[in-house]
């Protein structure tokens, strides 16, 4: 009977290379695919930032490969302003969507979450497969913009209308490039919605026996909350993208007001509202930064107990409720991106208050991490170093939020490099550090081999110091009124800041170079790293209760039963969630 076949097909690994490794329904393969995609994206995004930083600090330097890559955008390797903005737009888009949203959520979430809840796979494996491949097509569309004559769009990852809506009259890259961009983002929305749905249903319906919500590992909790946030946020970005696409291709005027004149020619639009676009975009855009950071919260909270050998202070509850609070509040603060955009000053104040109050759950989370270290026995393996680095970066990034949450101070700092420094700390590098923590932590589980610890530590130190050198300086130049998204500094004002620009560029080059240590380590260890045991860190959650790497259905047909919470640590001792032994830490 048909149902039997489906049943059987689900539990037996598919044969053949294509079904097994390419169009695979196995959540582990899909997780690796997501991670690979985001690693490729991260290196592309980093290369773009290198090119931008070099151009900013040394405008006369001919960047070797660039001239060959785009003879139009960078003749002889000298970047034109439009190409700079294109690179900036694509850096933002690739990093925000295909790296920061994809890696810690879809990547690790896919690999780890079903195992952590003791399921054989996601609730909807085929939906899961399609969500990766739709993401992949979205990525290809975004990447394709580099290879069209007009180049990638230049309206930033926020793609404010009407710049993004009127088409090529608005400048180079705003024709086909922007259209492809909108399609790419729409693809990403669809994929994220499918992914979020899968995560939610898997967490709700697929948990194994005894795994109550209070016993969920903290990473699963974070992915679960995150799935809700992304479900609701991407459900708004998708129609927003649809309206933008209709304005571009269908001649409608949702976001384009009347009376616009480009190149002395009156445009045939009327009545649209650019502020409507900003509201719709930021209604997605602000939760998006929490979509990026919540999995990082989860990964770090999951890694901490293993390496401090005790539960987090406050158990699973405090940190989880902080995450829920952050996720909920994130939907009512979007207006703080629009303090200077002609929104009514009263609304600015209304948005300022929840924006400031979102610091309370964030501070609680930080306090939980920091004060869990009290009385702990900290082990400094690379995953833990990265988790500690995350906490430090997140504190620093959060501080900048105070300045941008208030309309009065934001009216000076808005659109300066202070903002760039702030979001790179809070959502960019924090999430990247948590991703690295997760990568070093789960690598033995994913590939059955251990990464080189010495290279890992070297990678950490260079990254940690590099991040501070680049992004603290961005904050400081922001105070001096250095405006972001400038492709060159011709202001009388910003020329004196050139030494700072050069310092940042050199730091960024070193920071980027350090990532090749990681790349080498990840690839080399895959083939030459020492074989890992099933539970190399002495951890307690279900992913460590199976082999490394896990078999096709994760537990070899076993139905696990869970007896404990995830944080059963006491110095050298630890109790597996599946072990019927007594609790030693009372979780």
């Amino acid at each position, binding site marked *: 009977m048909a149902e039997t076949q489906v049943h059987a097909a689900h539990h037996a690994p598919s044969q053949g290379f294509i079904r097994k490794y390419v169009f695979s329904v196995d959540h582990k393969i899909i997780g690796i695919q997501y991670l690979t995609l985001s690693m490729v994206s991260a290196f592309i995004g980093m290369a773009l930032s290198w090119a931008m930083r070099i151009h900013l600090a040394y405008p006369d330097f001919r960047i070797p490969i660039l001239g060959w890559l785009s003879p139009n955008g960078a003749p002889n390797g000298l970047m034109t302003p439009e190409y700079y903005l294109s690179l900036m737009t694509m850096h933002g888009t690739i990093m925000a969507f295909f790296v920061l949203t994809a890696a810690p959520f879809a990547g690790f979430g896919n690999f780890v979450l079903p195992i952590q809840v003791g399921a054989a796979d996601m609730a909807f494996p085929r939906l899961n497969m399609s969500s990766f491949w739709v993401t992949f097509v979205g990525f290809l569309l975004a990447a394709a913009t580099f290879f069209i004559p007009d180049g990638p769009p230049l309206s930033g990852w926020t793609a404010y209308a009407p710049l993004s809506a009127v088409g090529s009259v608005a400048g180079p890259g705003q024709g086909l490039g922007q259209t492809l961009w909108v399609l790419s983002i729409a693809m990403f929305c669809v994929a994220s919605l499918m992914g979020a749905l899968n995560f939610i249903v898997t967490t709700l319906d697929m948990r194994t026996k005894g795994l109550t919500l209070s016993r969920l590992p903290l990473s699963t909790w974070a992915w679960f909350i995150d799935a809700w946030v992304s479900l609701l946020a991407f459900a708004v970005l998708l129609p927003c993208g649809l309206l933008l696409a209709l304005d571009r291709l269908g001649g409608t005027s949702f976001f384009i007001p009347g009376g616009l004149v480009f190149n002395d020619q009156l445009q045939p639009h009327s009545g649209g509202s650019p502020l409507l676009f900003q509201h719709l975009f930021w209604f997605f855009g602000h939760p998006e930064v929490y979509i990026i950071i919540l999995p990082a919260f989860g990964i770090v909270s999951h890694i901490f107990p293993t390496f401090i050998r005790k539960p987090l202070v406050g158990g699973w509850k405090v940190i989880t409720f902080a995450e829920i609070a952050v996720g909920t509040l994130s939907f009512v603060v979007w207006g703080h991106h629009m303090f*200077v955009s002609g929104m009514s000053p009263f609304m600015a104040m209304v948005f300022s208050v929840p924006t400031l109050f979102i610091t309370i759950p964030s501070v609680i989370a930080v306090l939980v991490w920091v004060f869990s270290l009290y009385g702990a026995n900290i082990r400094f393996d690379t995953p833990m170093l990265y988790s500690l680095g995350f906490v430090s970066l997140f504190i620093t990034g959060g501080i900048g939020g105070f300045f941008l949450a208030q309309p009065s101070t934001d009216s000076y700092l808005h659109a300066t490099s202070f903002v760039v420094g702030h979001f790179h700390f809070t959502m960019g590098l924090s999430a990247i550090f948590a991703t690295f923590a997760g990568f070093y932590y789960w690598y033995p589980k994913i590939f059955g081999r251990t990464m080189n610890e010495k290279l890992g530590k070297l990678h950490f130190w260079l990254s940690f110091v590099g991040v501070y050198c680049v992004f*603290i300086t961005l904050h400081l130049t922001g105070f001096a009124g250095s405006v972001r998204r400038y492709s060159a500094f011709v202001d009388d004002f910003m020329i004196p800041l050139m030494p700072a620009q050069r310092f940042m560029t050199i730091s960024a080059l070193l920071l980027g170079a350090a990532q090749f240590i990681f790349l080498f380590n990840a690839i080399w260890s895959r083939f030459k790293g020492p074989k890992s045991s099933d539970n190399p860190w002495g951890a307690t959650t279900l992913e460590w209760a199976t082999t490394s790497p896990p078999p096709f259905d994760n537990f070899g047909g076993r139905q696990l039963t869970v007896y404990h919470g995830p944080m059963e640590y006491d110095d050298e001792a630890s109790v597996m969630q599946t072990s019927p032994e007594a609790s030693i830490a009372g979780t």
Partner: protein
Amino acid sequence: MAGKVFAVVVVLVTLVTAYCVVTHVWWMPVDISVHGPKIDHQIEETILVAGLLFIAGQIVLASFVFRYGGATGKPKQIPGGAKPLVIFAFVLVGTEVLALSFIGSKAWGAVYFEAPDPSSLRIDVQAGQFAYYFRYSGPDGKFGPLHPELINEGNQNYFGLDPDHDPDAKDDIVTAEIGIPVNKPILLTLHSKDVGHSFYVRELRVQQDFVPGLSIPVHFTAIQTGRYEIVCTQLCGLGHYNMKAYLSVLSQSDFDDWLKKQAAMQ
């Protein structure tokens, strides 16, 4: 070992950052507006509050990592558990953010809720890819209506005025640089002819976006003569970085002369 290094690095980074902020290595330029000190004060206030949290957070993190790195034996929880932490976050941070939002609202209100002085000098500002143009109403005190279809920048009709048919537009003075008298309330009306732009004068502590389709009022009073840069801070296309104009704050008599000269150039 790694823990000690981590602690030292974190402390170093914190101190260097604090030093740079406190000694104003790169800092805001002189403030030339009446409302500006309120914003500056709020920034200082925030630096104090946020800076303390920053230093405290990093130092506590560093010291715990330093103290408990590589320890063995029975780990213990902080006395009292999470309760004091949550209370601390709600009470202390809650008070801080309440205070900030209260004082900040006052600063914001003092700048943006205040109705513009009725005697303000009104100037129409138009942003377009990639330049600002300014319009004074001339002796009649009236701005001529705008006809976007007539905009022809090559003929220097930047606003789309029709002086042949609109009497109000006849004496409108269009300039590429904005001159204002010192100590006089100024009321700008910002409108954009194509995409979003922004009006940012660091010394004035004014930043306001141009939103296509809207006319947005901005008012301020400058108290120091000089020539200051106006730059665009809202991504508007390839010439974004080069989109600027100059604000000349002049004495009243210099301003009158300047405006006469501009009128003669029309």
